[in-house]
C-alpha cells in the first residue's frame, strides 16, 4: 500500500495543468529532437537546461519537462530509422535493421505504430519497475566489478557476428574496425594518448554519434546520388495507415521479454540503452522460429529493440537516482540538473526528497501516455516524409546532421570526420559489409578494454580473476553459447525446411 500512497504523492505534485502542459511540450520537442539525426536525447536535454533556468521552473517542473524530452527522444529516434534508414540516435540503430525493410515494402505506417506501441510498453514497464524495485535494485551495481563487466561486454561481442544474416565473417570484420577505432584517445590505465597523432580533437576518442551520422546519414546521401533514388523507401506507394492489431498481439511476448532485458541492461551503469536494444534484438532473433526472416522486415525485429531501448532508458534512472552514477549520457545531464537544483542523488534520495522522486516517477508515467497518444495519430504525418521530393528531403537531412554534429563540440573537425565516416560507410555498403557492428565495436570496445585492463591491474595480471564470481562465470557461459550456438542451430533449423520444400 505504501507504493499507492507514494504514487498518490507523486501525482499530486505532477498532475497540475501547468506541469501537464510542460509534459506535452517536452514530449513534442523530444520526439522531434530524437528523430533528427545527430541530435539525441542528451543534446535535447542539455539544450533545454538554460530554458528551465530562464523560465524559473522549480525542481519538479524542470524534471517533468526534461524527462518528457528524454522519453520523447527515445520514442522519436525510431522515426528516421524506419523511414530513412538513418538512426535518429544511437539506441535506435537496431531498429533500422527491420524497420527500414518494412518501409521499403510499403509498411512504414505499420512499423511506426508497432514500434511506438513497443516503446510505450517498454517505457511503462520500466517506470513501474523503477517505482517498485529501485531502492533494492541499486545494490546490483555493487556486484559488478571489472571482471563481470568484461564478461558482459564479451557476451554482447560474441553475438555480434549474427547481426548480419548473410555473412558472419564480414560482420566480424566490421566489428574489428569498430574496435580499432575505439582504441583512439587517452588510455585510462596509463594516462597516455594512443593513435591521436598529437591532435587534440582525437584525445577523447571518436564520438560514436559522429560515426553513426557519418556511416548512416552521409553514406545514405552518397548512395542516393549514385542510384538516383532507386531501391529506397522514398516514393513507395503507401497504403492507408491502420493500426496493425494482429502484429501487436503477436509480438506481446517479445515486448514483455525485451522490456525485462532492456531494463536490466539500463540498470547496469555504462551499459545503457544501446546495449539494451542490441541484446533484445539478438535475443529475439535467436529464439524466433523464423530467424532467417529477421532483417527483411518482421514486426518482432522492430518491437524488440524499441521495447528494449525504452525500458533501458527507464532502467538507467535507477543507478542515477539511487547511487548518483549516470548509466548513460542523458542521465549524466539529468544528474547535472539535479545537482544544480541542489538535489543530490544518492542512497538517501528516496527518503530525503520523496516529493522529487515520486513526482519524477509520476511525470514519467504521464509523459508515456502523452507520447502514446501523440505518436500513434502522428504516424500519418510522419509517413508523409516519404512523399517529400528527395531533392528537398535529403539536403534537409544532411543539413540537420551537420548542424547536430556541430552543436556537439562546436568544432569543424567533427564535420570532417563525419564526412570521412560517410565515405567509409559508402565503401562498406558497396562491399556488402554491415555498418551496425562498426558502431557497436566503437561503443562496446572501449568499455570492454577498460574493464579488462582494470581487472588485470587489480589481480596483478592473473587471468583466473576473470572467472572469480558466479555472475562472471554465467556471463562467460552465455557468451560461449552465444558464439557457438548459431553454427549448430543453423544445421538443425535448415533440415526440416528442406524436407518441407521437397
Amino acid at each position, binding site marked *: 500500500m505504501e507504493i499507492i500512497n507514494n504514487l498518490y504523492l507523486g501525482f499530486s505534485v505532477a498532475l497540475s495543468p501547468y506541469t501537464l502542459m510542460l509534459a506535452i511540450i517536452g514530449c513534442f520537442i523530444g520526439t*522531434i529532437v530524437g*528523430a*533528427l539525426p545527430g*541530435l539525441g536525447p*542528451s543534446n535535447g*536535454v*542539455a*539544450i533545454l*537546461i538554460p530554458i528551465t*533556468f*530562464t523560465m524559473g521552473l522549480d525542481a519538479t517542473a524542470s524534471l517533468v519537462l526534461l524527462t518528457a524530452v528524454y522519453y520523447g527522444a527515445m520514442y522519436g529516434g525510431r522515426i528516421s530509422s524506419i523511414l530513412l534508414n538513418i538512426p535518429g540516435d544511437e539506441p535506435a540503430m537496431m531498429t533500422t535493421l527491420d524497420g527500414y525493410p518494412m518501409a521499403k515494402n510499403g509498411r512504414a505506417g505499420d512499423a511506426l505504430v508497432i514500434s511506438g506501441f513497443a516503446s510505450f510498453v517498454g517505457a511503462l514497464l520500466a517506470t513501474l519497475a523503477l517505482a517498485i524495485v529501485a531502492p533494492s535494485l541499486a545494490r546490483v*551495481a*555493487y*556486484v*559488478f*566489478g571489472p571482471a563481470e563487466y568484461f564478461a558482459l561486454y564479451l557476451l554482447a561481442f560474441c553475438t555480434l557476428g549474427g547481426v548480419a544474416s548473410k555473412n558472419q565473417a564480414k560482420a566480424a570484420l566490421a566489428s574489428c574496425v569498430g574496435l580499432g577505432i575505439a582504441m583512439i584517445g*587517452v*588510455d*585510462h*590505465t*596509463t*594516462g597516455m594518448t594512443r593513435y591521436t597523432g598529437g591532435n*587534440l*580533437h582525437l*584525445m*577523447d576518442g571518436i564520438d560514436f554519434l559522429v560515426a553513426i551520422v557519418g556511416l548512416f546519414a552521409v553514406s545514405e546521401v552518397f548512395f542516393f546520388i549514385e542510384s538516383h533514388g532507386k531501391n529506397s523507401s522514398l516514393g513507395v506507394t503507401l497504403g492507408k495507415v491502420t493500426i496493425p492489431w494482429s502484429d501487436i498481439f503477436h509480438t506481446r511476448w517479445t515486448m514483455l521479454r525485451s522490456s525485462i532485458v532492456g531494463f536490466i541492461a539500463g540498470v547496469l*551503469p*555504462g551499459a545503457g540503452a544501446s546495449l539494451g536494444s542490441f541484446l533484445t534484438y539478438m535475443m529475439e532473433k535467436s529464439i524466433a522460429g523464423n530467424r532467417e526472416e529477421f532483417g527483411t522486415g518482421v514486426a518482432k525485429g522492430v518491437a524488440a529493440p524499441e521495447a528494449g531501448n525504452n525500458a533501458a532508458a527507464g532502467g538507467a534512472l535507477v543507478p542515477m537516482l539511487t*547511487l*548518483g*552514477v549516470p548509466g548513460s*549520457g542523458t542521465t*549524466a*545531464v539529468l*544528474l*547535472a540538473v539535479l545537482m*544544480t537544483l*541542489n538535489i*543530490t542523488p*544518492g*542512497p*538517501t534520495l528516496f527518503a530525503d526528497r520523496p516529493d522529487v522522486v515520486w513526482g519524477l516517477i509520476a511525470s514519467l508515467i504521464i509523459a508515456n501516455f502523452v507520447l502514446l497518444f501523440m505518436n500513434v495519430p502522428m504516424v500519418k*504525418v*510522419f509517413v*508523409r516524409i516519404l512523399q*517529400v521530393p528527395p531533392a*528537398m528531403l535529403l539536403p*534537409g537531412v544532411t*543539413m*540537420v546532421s551537420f*548542424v*547536430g554534429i556541430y*552543436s*556537439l*563540440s562546436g*568544432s569543424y573537425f567533427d564535420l570532417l570526420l563525419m564526412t570521412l565516416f560517410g565515405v567509409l560507410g559508402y565503401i562498406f555498403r558497396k562491399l556488402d559489409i554491415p555498418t551496425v557492428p562498426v558502431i557497436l565495436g566503437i561503443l562496446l570496445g572501449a568499455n570492454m578494454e577498460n574493464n579488462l585492463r*582494470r581487472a588485470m*591491474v*587489480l589481480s*596483478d595480471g592473473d587471468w583466473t580473476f576473470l572467472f572469480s564470481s558466479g555472475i562472471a562465470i554465467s556471463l562467460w557461459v552465455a557468451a560461449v553459447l552465444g558464439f557457438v550456438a548459431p553454427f549448430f542451430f543453423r544445421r538443425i533449423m535448415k533440415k526440416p525446411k528442406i524436407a518441407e520444400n521437397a
Partner: protein
Amino acid sequence: MAFKLNTLLASAAFAVISTTSFATECIAPANPGGGWDFTCRQIGKILFDIGQVPNPVQVTNMAGGGGGLAFNHVVSERGTDNDLIVAASQATATRLAQNAYAGMTADQVRFVGAIGADPGVIVVAKDSPFQNLNDMVAAIKADPGSVAFAGGSAAGGFDHLKVLMILKETGFTDIRKIKYIGVDGGADAITQTVGGFTQGMTGDMSEIVGFLKSGEVRALAVLTEQRVPGFEDIPTAQEQGIDVVAVNWRGLYVPKGISDADFEAWGGKLKAVAESQEWQDAMTANGLAPFTKVGGDFQSWVDGVIADTVELSKEIGVIQ
C-alpha cells in the same frame, strides 16, 4: 511537409540558441554533467541573479581533449574577448603541468579566481579493517599490492596523485607499485569500493556526500587544512600526522589579452558571487568548502600548484 517544416524550424532554433553572442559566455570545457559544467551553470546563474551581468550567462559546452580544445579555442581565437569566462579546476592545472594540452602552457591565459574547493577525501567501505589513514598506510607499506584504489580520473590524474602525495609524505618511495584504477567518475569509484573490488576510493567530497549520509562508506581523511563545515567528524590528514593538502578548486580563467582593468573587474564579480547567500547554499549542498582567491593572488597560487605537480609527475613517470 508539415513535419519537414518543423524540423527546419527546430534546427534553426538550435542554431540560434548555440550561437547567441550578445550575452556573457561561459565555456564549460566538457559535456554537460561534470564539475566544469556545474561551475559555469552555477556561477553564471548567480552572476545574473545578483545583477553582476546584465543578461543571463550563456553556457557553451566545448568538450574535448580533457579541456584542451576549449583552452586552444580561447588562446587562438578569443584572446581578447573580455566577455568570456571559462570554467577551470585543479584538473586544468594538472593537465597543463603534465603537458597534456599539446604544448600549450598555463601562461597563455589568466587565472582569475577560485570561489570554492572540493576537498580531497580518502574513503573506505563501512566494513573496511582500516580505522584511520595510518592503518591504511601501514598496510600498503607491508604489502603494496594488498590495497587497490579507485578514482574518477585516469592514471596520473589528480585523484591518483592524491594517494601518491600521501604515501610519499609518509616516506614510502616505491610509489609506482600502488594499484590504481581510473573509472568513469567518483560515484562509480565508490560502487567499486563498496562492492569490495577495490579497498579504497580517492576522490572529492562532493562525490561522496550521499554515500556518507547513508552510512555505506567511511571517510578516513579529508585533505584540507581545517575540517570541512558540515562534515566536522571527518579528521584531516594533517591531524593524523600526514601533511598533505589537496583540494579540487573550482574557478575560472579568462583570455590572456584582456586589459588589467577587465581582469580586476572579473575578480570583483567573482568575489561578489562567492559572498552571495545563493553560492553559500550551493556549496553546502554540494560538499564544497569555502576557498576564495581572486585576481593576482590566485594567479600566483596556481603557478605554485603547477610547479609542484610537475615535480610529482616526473617522479611517477607521467612526464619526462
